[in-house]
């Protein structure tokens, strides 16, 4: 779990799952739903995440916030402390 439900932030919850599933809800789903999904998918791809359930509650976060929260959630979920920042 990572993030908050404050305005301009998002909460990311991760659970084990055999396939990859991303469920997004957002206060700005209509305007930016597609973009949010794109940012999340790209971030997960770059981190080579292949499975897990990602539940995202977005409160109008900027792309960079979304990216950072997803990255942290993945690191916490995988208990990984070292990250190859150059790849991201």
């Amino acid at each position, binding site marked *: *779990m990572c993030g*908050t*439900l404050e*305005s301009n932030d998002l*909460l990311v919850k991760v*659970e084990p799952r055999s396939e990859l599933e991303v*469920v997004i809800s957002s*206060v700005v789903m209509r305007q930016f739903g597609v973009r949010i999904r794109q940012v999340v998918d790209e971030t997960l791809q770059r981190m080579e995440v292949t499975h897990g359930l990602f*539940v995202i*509650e977005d409160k109008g976060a900027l792309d960079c916030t979304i990216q950072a929260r997803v990255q942290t959630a993945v690191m916490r979920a995988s208990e990984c402390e070292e990250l190859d920042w150059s790849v991201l």
Partner: protein
Amino acid sequence: MSNEPIFETMIPRRNARGAEVRSLLAASGLEIEKDIQIFVVACDAGRIVACAGLAGEVVKCVTIAEPYRGSALACRLMCEVQMLAMKRRHSHLFLYTKPGNAVLFEGCGFHMLAEVKGHACLMENTPVGIRDYCDKLQPFRQTAQRIGSVVINANPFTLGHLHLVREARRACDWLHVFVVSENASAIAYAERLDMVRAGLAGMDRVTVHRGSRYLISKATFPGYFIKDSCVVEACSTAMDLLIFRKYIAPALGITHRFVGSEPFCRLTAKYNEDMLDWLETAAEEGAPIQVVEYPRFEVDGRAVSASEVRRLLARGDFAAMDSLVPVATLSQLRASYPRVRPAVDCRATELIGVM
């Protein structure tokens, strides 16, 4: 009021500030429920202005003092509760609230499961919880006209349960048997499930399912496992039955639910009575499910009851159990409870689900 309330955790009984939480809840017409293990409270200038209680995986007794409503405090409070719950190894949470507040909690990542109109809503903190469960049931769906269901705690599995399953199976094309999975009974879930499987082995047109949080659990039917008060509230049984009708029955195409009549436990009797109302009569989401009640199976003129078997078990009187339980149950009880175990509590485990 400052903008930065401080969040703390508090165990109500051990804390001098329990009274403060109690009066905050009282202002919203709530009281501290007995099964709450820990509270998250928000303090502003030293005063408690919001609280949320945690009972296992159930969030309840959530309130915010009047002047603080409409701020972002609710979301922060719910975030804190989820963090606390996660530390306590519960990531999947349920929440009880009044129907009017459901929208507020939807903004905090909770999703509606069922509503007892005018009384209460049950929500969960995942968009995929009940969906996943129904997806797991789907492969067991049978194409036939009369699809029956039986929900048993089988604590332990008796000849009464066996009789009910046999009768129900005869009355329909396929029977789904659910074993209550909440581990709050004298006999552990794994053992109960084994007994049911062994007792029904070789029977065709029957599927034995593991129970779930959505079926007579501390989440859907909290009153049931808090036994000492034995309070029978108006909507305590409704939530569980509504979820069964709205999600579980459609996933398996269930048309009938079978129960054994309940001569002993008042709460179980009430559950059976309400079943007719919520599953069959009430205009609710999901097709009506026909409820069929069979008289309790009797041996020597006495209704067979699991609680009677537990009393015998506590005394180690296996000989007397012989006429009440299937062979498989008896041998399993003999193996698992070789000596008298007074710790087996008969009273607190009067189980429902049918008998």
